[in-house]
C-alpha cells in the first residue's frame, strides 16, 4: 500500500515537474507529505516513504533532462529530506504521545465507570471533584448533584465528619496520614439518610500544586450481614445450653461445644479423645451402633430420647437430633448431633406420674397390706431406681412383704427378699439417703446392698400418727446425690398413704363399733325371743291340755308371731353380714329334693289359710354341696313371697329339675305379676314392689336380697319371668357340682 501510494505520489510529482521549473520549490514541498506520512503513520513508514520518493526522483532526474546536476540535486535532497524526516519524526512522536495519553484516559475512564467500587475524587478543601456511576447507585446522589459539594456532608454520617476534617488538616500539614493508602472500614451515609458499612481506600495524588484524593468505597453491607450471621451462629453454638457435637462415622467425637461440656461435664479436650460409646450408661444396652448405622445410611434422628452418662457417672436424659454431614461430593462423612438435656423435664414427668399413680391407687381403696407393694413400683419408676423393697411394720419387727426390680435391668444379687425380717429403730421414721460407704446397719439389708454394689439407698418411711407404719427402701447402683425434689415428692406420697391408713383405721373402728352394736342388738333381741319361744313350746307340749280351746288358740298366735319375729331378726342380721362380706356358709352335701319338700310343708299352713293350691313336683333328687339351712331359706322366702302375692284361691307350684349339672328350683305363682321395669329392682335391699305397697302385703323388702346373696354364694343365679297379671316364676339355678373348696378336701 505504501509503495503504491509513494509511486502514485511520485507520478503526480513528476507530472508537476514536467510542467514547471520550480524544482527546488517542489523538492522542498516534498517535505510536507513525508512529514504528513510520518505524522500519520509513524516514523518508520515516513522514512521508507521519503527514501522511496527520493529514490524515484533521483531515477527521474537521471533519466530526464534536468536543469540541475544530479550532484546538486542530491546535495539539496540531503538537506531537505533530513529536515522532512526530522519534521515527520517530531510530529510522529507528538502524535504517538497524544494517542497514548488518550488511550490511557479511556482505559481509566472505563475502569472508573465500570468499577463496583464507588470512586470519589475530592480536593484538599474536601470538595467533590468526581463521582462515578457506582457512587451514584451506592449513595443515591447523581454526579451532577454532588460535584463541588462538601464530601463529608454528602457521604458521611454526622458523627464522623469532624474526624474527616481533622484527618484532612493533619494530612495537609504532615503530608501523610494513617488512613491514606490504607484500607479501612467506615460508615457511610446514603441520600435517604440510611447508613451502611463500607470499606474505604484513599490515595492522595499531588496535582498542580495541590492534593487530590481518590476514595474507593466498597459497600460491605452484604458481607457484614454474612459475617454477622456467621458470628451469630458461632455464638449460638458457643452459648447454647444444648450440646452440639460432631462425630466420625465410627463414633469418635470431633467437636464439642460449651453446652456439651455443661451437660456431660467433659471439657472439649477430654471429649475430643472420646467416642459416643463412652456416653452410654454402663448398665444399659449399647444404642450407639444403631445410631451410627442410621447416620451412615443417611437417616436423620429427630428428637429421640436417650439415657446418657456424663463425667463421674452422672446420669443424663437427652433428647437427641442427629443429621448426617456430607462432603462436597455428597458422600456422608460424619454426623452432627444436638443433645438437649431433658433430665429435668423427664424427672418432673416421672414424679407427677408417681404421685398421680399413688393417688389413683389409693382411690381404689386397697387393703393396707397391699397398698405399699402396689405403690412401690410407681415410685421405683419415678426415681428411677434399680430395685426396691417394701417393709411392713409388725410390732417390733419390719417384715419385707414385697420386692421390686426395674424391668430394664437384671439384678445379679437382690438386696433382700420377701419374708426377710429386721428390727426397726427410731431413726427409720425419717427419710434416709445413704450413699456409698454411709450405707450400713441403720437400714435392713443396708450393708448387704452396699457390698453388693448398690451405692445409693433411699429409705422413705410411712408414718401414721407418729408411729412407723411401713417403709419403702430403694436401691441404685449409681452414686446419686440427695435429691430434694424427689424426697419431697415421695414425702408427699407417703403423707397421702399415711392419711389413707388413718382414714382406713378410723373406718375400721367404725366398722367394729357397728359390728359390736349389731352384736348387742342381736343379743338383746334374741334373748327375750328365746324365752317366748322356749316357754311357748313348753306350754304347748306339756300344758296344752290344761288350757281352754281359746287359750290354745291364743298360745298358737303368740308362737306364730314369735317365729315370725325370729325370722325377721335372723334376716336382718344375715343382711348385715352379707353387706359387710362376713357371710359364711356351712357346707355339706344337700339333698335338694328334701329341702324343697320341707319348705313346701312349712309353707302349707300359710297357703291353706289363703286357700291357695300349693303343689310340688320333683323330677329328680339332685344333690349339691351347700348350706342346707340357707338353701331352705331360699325356698322358704320364694314360697312365702309367692303366697303373699297370690290372691285367694290362686295356685303356687314348686318344680325341681336337674340338667347338665345344674339344679333348677322354680317357684311359680298365679299372682299379680311383676312389670318389667320393676324386675331389675327386685333384688335391691329394702325394695318393695309398688303393687305390694298398694295391696298392704306385709314385708320389709329383705327376702329376695337374701335369696340372691345365698344363691350367689352357691355359685348359682336367679332369674325372674313375669307378665303383669299372669303371675311370676322365680328360677334358682345351682350347680350340682359346685366349685372345689379347699376345706372340703377329705381328711385321712
Amino acid at each position, binding site marked *: 500500500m505504501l509503495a503504491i501510494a509513494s509511486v502514485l505520489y511520485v507520478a503526480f510529482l513528476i507530472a508537476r515537474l514536467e510542467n514547471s521549473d520550480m524544482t527546488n520549490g517542489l523538492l522542498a514541498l516534498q517535505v510536507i507529505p513525508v512529514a504528513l506520512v510520518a505524522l500519520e503513520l509513524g516514523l518508520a513508514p515516513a522514512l521508507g516513504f521519503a527514501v522511496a520518493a527520493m529514490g524515484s526522483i533521483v531515477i527521474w532526474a537521471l533519466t530526464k533532462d534536468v536543469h540541475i546536476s544530479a550532484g546538486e540535486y542530491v546535495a539539496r535532497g540531503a538537506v531537505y529530506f533530513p529536515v522532512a524526516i526530522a519534521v515527520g519524526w517530531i510530529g510522529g512522536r507528538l502524535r504517538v504521545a497524544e494517542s497514548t495519553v488518550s488511550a490511557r484516559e479511556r482505559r481509566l475512564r472505563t475502569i472508573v465507570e465500570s468499577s463496583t467500587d464507588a470512586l470519589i475524587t475530592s480536593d484538599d478543601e474536601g470538595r467533590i471533584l468526581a463521582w462515578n456511576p457506582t457512587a451514584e447507585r451506592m449513595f443515591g446522589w447523581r454526579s451532577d448533584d454532588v460535584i463541588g459539594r462538601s464530601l463529608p456532608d454528602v457521604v458521611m454520617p454526622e458523627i464522623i465528619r469532624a474526624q474527616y476534617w481533622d484527618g484532612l488538616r493533619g494530612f495537609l500539614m504532615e503530608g501523610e496520614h494513617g488512613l491514606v493508602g490504607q484500607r479501612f472500614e467506615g460508615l457511610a451515609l446514603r441520600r435517604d439518610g440510611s447508613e451502611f458499612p463500607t470499606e474505604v481506600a484513599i490515595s492522595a495524588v499531588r496535582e498542580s500544586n495541590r492534593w487530590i484524593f481518590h476514595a474507593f468505597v466498597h459497600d460491605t453491607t452484604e458481607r457484614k450481614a454474612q459475617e454477622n450471621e456467621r458470628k451469630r451462629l458461632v455464638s449460638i453454638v458457643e452459648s447454647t445450653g444444648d450440646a452440639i457435637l460432631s462425630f466420625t462415622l465410627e463414633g469418635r467425637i470431633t467437636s464439642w461445644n460449651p453446652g456439651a461440656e455443661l451437660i456431660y461435664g467433659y471439657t472439649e479436650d477430654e471429649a475430643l479423645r472420646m467416642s459416643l460409646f463412652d456416653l452410654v450408661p454402663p448398665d444399659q444396652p449399647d444404642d450407639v451402633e444403631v445410631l451410627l448405622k442410621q447416620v451412615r445410611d443417611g437417616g436423620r434422628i429427630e428428637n429421640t430420647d436417650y439415657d446418657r452418662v456424663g463425667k463421674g457417672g452422672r446420669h443424663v436424659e437427652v433428647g437427641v437430633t442427629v443429621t448426617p454431614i456430607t462432603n462436597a461430593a455428597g458422600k456422608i462423612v460424619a454426623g452432627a448431633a444436638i443433645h438437649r438435656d431433658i433430665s429435668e423435664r423427664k424427672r418432673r414427668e416421672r414424679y407427677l406420674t408417681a404421685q398421680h399413680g399413688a393417688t389413683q391407687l389409693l382411690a381404689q381403696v386397697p387393703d393396707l397390706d397391699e397398698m405399699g407393694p402396689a405403690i412401690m413400683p410407681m415410685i421405683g419408676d419415678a426415681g428411677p431406681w434399680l430395685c426396691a423393697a417394701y417393709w411392713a411394720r409388725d410390732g417390733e419387727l419390719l417384715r419385707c412383704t414385697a420386692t421390686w426390680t426395674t424391668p430394664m435391668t437384671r439384678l445379679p444379687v437382690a438386696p433382700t427378699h420377701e419374708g426377710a425380717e429386721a428390727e426397726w429403730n427410731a431413726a427409720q421414721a425419717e427419710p434416709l439417703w445413704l450413699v456409698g460407704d454411709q450405707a450400713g446397719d441403720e437400714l435392713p439389708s443396708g450393708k448387704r446392698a452396699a457390698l453388693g454394689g448398690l451405692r445409693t439407698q433411699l429409705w422413705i418411711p410411712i408414718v401414721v400418727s407418729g408411729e412407723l407404719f411401713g417403709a419403702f427402701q430403694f436401691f441404685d447402683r449409681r452414686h446419686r446425690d440427695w435429691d430434694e425434689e424427689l424426697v419431697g415428692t415421695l414425702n408427699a406420697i407417703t403423707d397421702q398413704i399415711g392419711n389413707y391408713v388413718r382414714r382406713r383405721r378410723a373406718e375400721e373402728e367404725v366398722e367394729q363399733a357397728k359390728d359390736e352394736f349389731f*352384736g*348387742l342388738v*342381736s*343379743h338383746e*333381741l*334374741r*334373748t327375750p*325371743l*328365746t*324365752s*317366748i*319361744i*322356749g*316357754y311357748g*313350746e*313348753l306350754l304347748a*307340749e*306339756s300344758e296344752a291340755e290344761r288350757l281352754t280351746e281359746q287359750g290354745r288358740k291364743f298360745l298358737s298366735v303368740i308362737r306364730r308371731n*314369735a317365729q315370725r319375729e*325370729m325370722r325377721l331378726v335372723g334376716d336382718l342380721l344375715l343382711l348385715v*353380714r352379707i353387706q359387710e362380706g*362376713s357371710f*359364711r356358709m*356351712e357346707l355339706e352335701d344337700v339333698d335338694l329334693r328334701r329341702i324343697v319338700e320341707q319348705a313346701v310343708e312349712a309353707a302349707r299352713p300359710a297357703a291353706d289359710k289363703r286357700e291357695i293350691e300349693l303343689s310340688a313336683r320333683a323330677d329328680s333328687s339332685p344333690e349339691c354341696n351347700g348350706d342346707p339351712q340357707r338353701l331352705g331359706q331360699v325356698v322358704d322366702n320364694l314360697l312365702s313371697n309367692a303366697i303373699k302375692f297370690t290372691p285367694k284361691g290362686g295356685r303356687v307350684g314348686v318344680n325341681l329339675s336337674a340338667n347338665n349339672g345344674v339344679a333348677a328350683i322354680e317357684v311359680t305363682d298365679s299372682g299379680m305379676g311383676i312389670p318389667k321395669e320393676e324386675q331389675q329392682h327386685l333384688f335391691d335391699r329394702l325394695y318393695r314392689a309398688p303393687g305390694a305397697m298398694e295391696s298392704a302385703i306385709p314385708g320389709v323388702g329383705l327376702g329376695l336380697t337374701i335369696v340372691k346373696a345365698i344363691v350367689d354364694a352357691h355359685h348359682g343365679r336367679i332369674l325372674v319371668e313375669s307378665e303383669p297379671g299372669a303371675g311370676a316364676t322365680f328360677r334358682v339355678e345351682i350347680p350340682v357340682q359346685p366349685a372345689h373348696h379347699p376345706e372340703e378336701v377329705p381328711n385321712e
Partner: protein
Amino acid sequence: MNDHARVILVADDDEDILDLVCLTLEQAGHETIRAADGEEALRLVLRHRPDACVLDVVMPKRTGLEIIEVLRDTEETSDIPILLLTATIREQYLPPGVEKSGKGYLRKPFSPRELQERVAWILDPRDR
C-alpha cells in the same frame, strides 16, 4: 332317757332362760346345776365336775368362751363336753374345743326339743 341321766351345769345370766334350759333338761331326766354368771359357773364346774356344761356366751364376770378356755386348760375338766348358747357369735370366732360342725353350739332362740337333742349329742356323740 332316765338311763342316761347326767349332771349338767347350766349357766346363763338371764334368769328366764336359765329356768327354761334347766326345765327342759330336767324334763329329759337330767340333773342340773344352776349358775347365774361366769365366775359362779366356773366355781361350780370345778367343784361338782358335771357330765356336761351348757354355757351362755355373754355373761357377766366371765364369758362362756373364757370358761371353756379355763376348762380346757385344766386337766380334770378338759374333756367335759360343752354346749354353747349364743345369740350373736359367729362360727368363725368360736374358740378351739367347740365343735364347729354346728353341733357344739346352739343359736338363740332355740326350741326345747332342739336343746334336748343337742345335749344328748354332746354327752354321747356316738349316739348320733
